[in-house]
C-alpha cells in the first residue's frame, strides 16, 4: 500500500467508512505519520468551520405549501377544460380591445384582403377537357391548363388556374 493509499484511508477513517481491519491500518499509520496526522487535523478544523448543519425544524406550513403547489399545478388543466364554455366569443374579445373598434375591424378586413390578393391560387376545379371555355366563362380571367388526369369513369379532365 502506497503512502497516498494510506492517506486516503485516513480520510475514510474521518468519514467513518472503514471496515474494522482497514480502521486498524489507518490508525496505526496515523500514529506514526506526522504529515497525515497534520493533514487530517487540518481537514477536521476546516470541515467544522465551513460545513456545519443548520437545524431545520419540522414545518406543517411547508407541507401545506407543497400541497397547495401541487394543487395549483393540477388545476390549470382541469380549469381549462371546465371553463372552456365560459371563454368570450371572438366578437366579445374584439369588442374588449382598446382603441376605436372601427380601426380594429378595418385592420382585420385589410389582413383578409391581403391574404386574398397575395396567396397563390389553387386549382379551383377540374373541368372536362372538351369544355375549357366553361371555366373561362365562370372566372372572367385567363385560364391555364396545369395538368390533366383521368377520372374514375375514364374521362380525361384538366386542371386550370382560374
Amino acid at each position, binding site marked *: 500500500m502506497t503512502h497516498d493509499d494510506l492517506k486516503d484511508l485516513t480520510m475514510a477513517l474521518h*468519514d467513518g467508512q472503514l471496515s474494522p481491519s482497514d480502521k486498524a491500518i489507518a490508525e496505526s499509520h496515523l500514529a506514526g505519520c506526522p504529515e497525515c496526522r497534520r493533514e487530517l487535523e487540518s481537514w477536521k478544523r476546516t470541515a467544522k468551520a*465551513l460545513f456545519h448543519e443548520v437545524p431545520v425544524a419540522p414545518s406543517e406550513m411547508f407541507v401545506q405549501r407543497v400541497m397547495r403547489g401541487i394543487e395549483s399545478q393540477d388545476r390549470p388543466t382541469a380549469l381549462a377544460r371546465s371553463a372552456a364554455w365560459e371563454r368570450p366569443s371572438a366578437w366579445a374579445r374584439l369588442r374588449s380591445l382598446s382603441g376605436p373598434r372601427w380601426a380594429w375591424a378595418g385592420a382585420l378586413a385589410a389582413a383578409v384582403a391581403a391574404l386574398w390578393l397575395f396567396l397563390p391560387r389553387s386549382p379551383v376545379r377540374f373541368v372536362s377537357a372538351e369544355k375549357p371555355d366553361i371555366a373561362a366563362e365562370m372566372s372572367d380571367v385567363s385560364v391555364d391548363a396545369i395538368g390533366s388526369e383521368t377520372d374514375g369513369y375514364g374521362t380525361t379532365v384538366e386542371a386550370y388556374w382560374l
Partner: protein
Amino acid sequence: MMEDERRVVREALSGDREAFASIVRAHEVRVRSLCLSILRNPAEADDAAQDVFIKAYKNLSSFRFESSLSTWLYRIAHRRCLDILRSGSRRRTEPLDAMDGEVFQEKAPPERGDAERILAVLSPEERLVLTLREVQGLTYEEMAGVLDTTLDGVKGRLKRARKTLRVKARHLFEPAAVQRVKETTP
C-alpha cells in the same frame, strides 16, 4: 419500513393527496436541510425543497423502489440545487449567515472573512459532494445512490473536492483564519 413506504407510495399514486402529504411530512426536514446546507439561503432553500416535492409528485410513477424513497428524494434535491448553483441567478446568501448568529464578523478582512467566499472556490458538484458527506453525514453508499455513481466514484469525487479546497483556498486555512471562523460559529 420499506413495506410502509411502498404502501404510502401506492396510495399516493392512486390519487390520495393525504398519502403524499405524509411523504412530504416524513422527509421535509432532511430535504430542506440539504437544500439549506447547499444554497445557504433559507427562502431559496425552501423554494428549492418545494420544487423537489412537486417534481417527486409528478414523477412518483417512475420511482421503482430500487433505492429508499429518501435517497430518491435526495437525488432530485441534489439535481435541483445543482441547477440553482449553476444558474448564476442566485439570491444573496446573507440571511443564513445572519441566522447563524453572525457567523462571520463584519469587521473581518474581506479576503478571508466569509465562508461563502471560501466555498466559492469549489464547483457546484464539489460543494455538493462535501455537503452530503460533511453536513448530512451520508455514507459512501448513500452518496453513490444520490449521485448515481459507484463507491469508487464517490471516493474520487470527495478526494478531488477536498484537494480543491486545500489547494485553491490554502491561504484561508492558516490556523488563525480557520480558528477565527470556528470561534464565530455557534
